[in-house]
C-alpha cells in the first residue's frame, strides 16, 4: 500500500501534503491534526497577533483547498500511537489508519517552568506561554494598558512579545539568565543593536537574572536569586520549546534532541520521515546535528521529505533562513552563526549591521543582519545564495558597505 499519512498540520505537515500532491496526482494523502479549524501560521502570534485589534490567525491553506486537492484532512483528533512494524497508527477516537509512508510533523510545545506550591487556578490566571492561536487569544484577552508584565527568557518569542506589549502601553520586564540577549541565537553585534532598541522603547531587560521563586496573591511576586523582588500582573514564560517526540519515542524511533533524521529526512525506520521543529538533522555546512525552529526550514524539510516518501533521493542541504520583527527593526539570518573562524561585521548605521562568518576556505557560512524595516533583506538573500552555492568571498569586501554582494555572486 502506498498511502501517505502525515501527523500534524503545521508548516511542515501542510507543505509535505501539497508537495506530495504536486508530484503525484493519485497517491492517497491524509493529514491528522489535533487542533480544529484551518492550519494557520504561527509567526504572527507574537507580532500582529498582539498588536492588531482585528487580528485573525492567517491560514496556511483552507480546508476547502485541501479538499480540492483530494487531501483528506482529519481534525480535532490526535494520533495516540504508532505501530511502526504493522505500519499503522491509532487515533484518539480509537480508529486505525494504515500507511505506506508516514511523516511525523508534530512540531514542538512551549517549555514552561514548574511553579512549586501553585494552584491550577493561579497558573491559569497568571502564567502564559505562546505557541498556539488559543495561547495568543488568552494573552490578548489579558492585555490592558498600564499593566506590568514579566517575560521570562530573552529569546525570540520573549523579545517579540516585549515589543508587541510595549505597543499596548504595558510595562515590560524581561528576565534572562544569560549575560546577553539571544546568546546562542545571534552574533553579538546584532544583539547589541536589538538590546538598544528595547531599551529605547522602555523595555527593561535584566540579564544574569535567575528566579529563586514565584508566589501569587493578587499579583505575581518574582524573587530573583540576587534577592531582588519584582511584581507583575501576569507573566509569560518564553524559554524555548520541547519537540513533540512522544509518539516517535514509543514507536522505538531514534531520538536525539528531537526525532533523529538523516539528510533525506528519514528516521531510523525506513518508511517513517520527520520534518520541522520536531526533528534534529545533520546540518550540511558543518555536519553538526541541530534542531531548529524556523518557519521556512520546516517547509523546506517537508518538501524534501515528501519527495523521498515518493521514492526520490533528495537531500536537505540548504542554509536555514530565519527572521524576527521587533519594533521597527527587522532581523534576518541565513546559515547558523556559531562563532566560526572569521567573523566580519559590516556596519550600516547606528541601528543596522550585517554580520558574516567565513571559514578557512573563504566560504561564507552564515549572515545575520538587522535594520529598520527590510533594509537588510536584499543582502541576506544574496548571502543565502553565496552560502548555498558555496562561493568564496573576500573578507575585506564583506566588511565594506559600498561593495555590492551581488558582484560576488556573478563572479
Amino acid at each position, binding site marked *: 500500500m502506498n498511502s501517505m499519512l502525515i501527523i500534524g498540520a503545521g508548516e511542515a505537515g501542510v*507543505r509535505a501534503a*501539497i508537495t506530495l500532491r504536486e508530484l503525484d496526482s493519485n497517491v492517497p494523502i491524509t493529514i491528522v491534526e489535533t487542533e480544529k479549524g484551518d492550519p494557520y*501560521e504561527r509567526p504572527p502570534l507574537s507580532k500582529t497577533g498582539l498588536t492588531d485589534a482585528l487580528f485573525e490567525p492567517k491560514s*496556511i491553506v483552507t480546508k476547502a483547498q485541501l479538499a480540492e486537492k483530494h487531501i483528506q484532512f482529519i481534525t480535532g483528533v490526535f494520533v495516540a500511537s504508532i505501530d511502526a512494524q504493522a505500519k499503522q497508527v491509532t487515533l484518539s477516537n480509537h480508529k486505525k489508519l494504515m500507511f505506506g509512508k508516514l511523516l511525523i510533523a508534530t512540531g514542538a510545545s512551549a517549555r514552561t517552568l514548574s511553579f512549586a506550591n501553585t494552584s491550577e487556578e493561579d497558573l491559569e490566571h497568571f502564567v502564559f506561554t505562546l505557541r498556539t492561536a488559543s495561547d495568543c487569544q488568552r494573552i490578548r484577552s489579558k492585555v490592558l494598558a498600564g499593566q506590568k508584565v514579566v517575560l521570562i527568557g530573552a529569546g525570540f518569542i520573549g523579545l517579540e512579545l516585549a515589543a508587541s506589549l510595549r505597543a499596548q502601553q504595558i510595562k515590560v520586564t524581561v528576565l534572562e539568565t544569560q549575560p546577553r540577549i539571544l546568546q546562542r541565537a545571534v552574533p553579538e553585534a546584532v544583539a547589541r543593536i536589538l538590546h538598544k532598541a528595547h531599551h529605547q522603547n522602555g523595555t527593561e531587560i535584566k540579564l544574569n537574572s535567575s528566579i529563586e521563586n514565584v508566589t501569587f496573591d493578587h499579583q505575581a511576586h518574582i524573587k530573583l536569586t540576587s534577592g531582588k523582588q519584582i511584581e507583575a500582573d501576569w507573566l509569560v514564560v518564553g524559554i524555548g520549546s520541547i519537540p513533540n517526540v512522544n509518539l516517535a519515542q514509543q514507536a522505538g524511533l531514534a531520538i536525539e534532541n528531537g526525532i533523529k533524521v538523516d539528510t533525506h529526512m528519514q528516521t531510523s525506520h525506513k518508511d517513517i520521515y520527520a520534518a520541522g521543529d520536531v526533528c534534529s538533522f545533520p546540518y550540511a555546512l558543518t555536519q553538526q546535528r541541530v534542531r531548529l525552529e524556523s*518557519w*521556512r526550514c520546516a*517547509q523546506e524539510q517537508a518538501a524534501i521529505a515528501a519527495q523521498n516518501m515518493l521514492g526520490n533521493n533528495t537531500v536537505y542541504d540548504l542554509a536555514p*533562513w530565519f*527572521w524576527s520583527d521587533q519594533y521597527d527593526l*527587522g532581523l534576518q539570518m541565513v546559515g547558523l552563526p556559531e562563532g566560526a573562524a572569521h567573523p566580519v561585521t559590516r556596519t550600516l548605521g547606528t541601528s543596522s549591521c550585517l554580520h558574516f562568518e567565513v571559514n578557512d576556505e573563504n566560504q561564507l557560512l552564515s549572515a545575520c543582519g538587522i535594520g529598520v*524595516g*527590510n*533594509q537588510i*533583506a*536584499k543582502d541576506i*538573500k*544574496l548571502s543565502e*545564495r553565496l552560502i548555498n552555492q558555496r562561493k568564496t568571498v573576500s573578507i575585506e569586501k564583506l566588511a565594506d558597505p559600498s561593495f555590492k554582494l*551581488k558582484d560576488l555572486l556573478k563572479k
Partner: protein
Amino acid sequence: MSNWIEVCPLDDIDEEDVMPFNHSEQTFAIYRCPKGEVFATSGLCTHERIHLADGLVMDDIIECPKHNGRFNYKSGKALGAPVCEHLKTFPTKVENDVIYLELQNL
C-alpha cells in the same frame, strides 16, 4: 482611454533591480530586467502587503523582502507558498530615456 504617467529617468534603476513608485494613492514596483527592459507591477506583496521594492531581483523573479515569496515580475505570477495571489502588471514604455507607466482610466 489610456493614461501614461512619467515615472523616472531610466538610469535611476540599475539593471536587474527594482524601485518603488507612488502615484495617486497607489504604489508600484518598477523593474529593470537583466537585459535592460522595464516592467511594472503593483507594489505590495500579496502575502502581507509588504513593499516589494526592498526585495531582490534575479533574472525574471522578484523575491519579497519579508518571507521570500516569489513572483515573476513580467507576468505577475505568484510562484508558490507563501504567495498564491498574483501581482497586477502594468504596461511600461521608455521614451528619451524616461520611464512611463500606463494606467487604465476607469
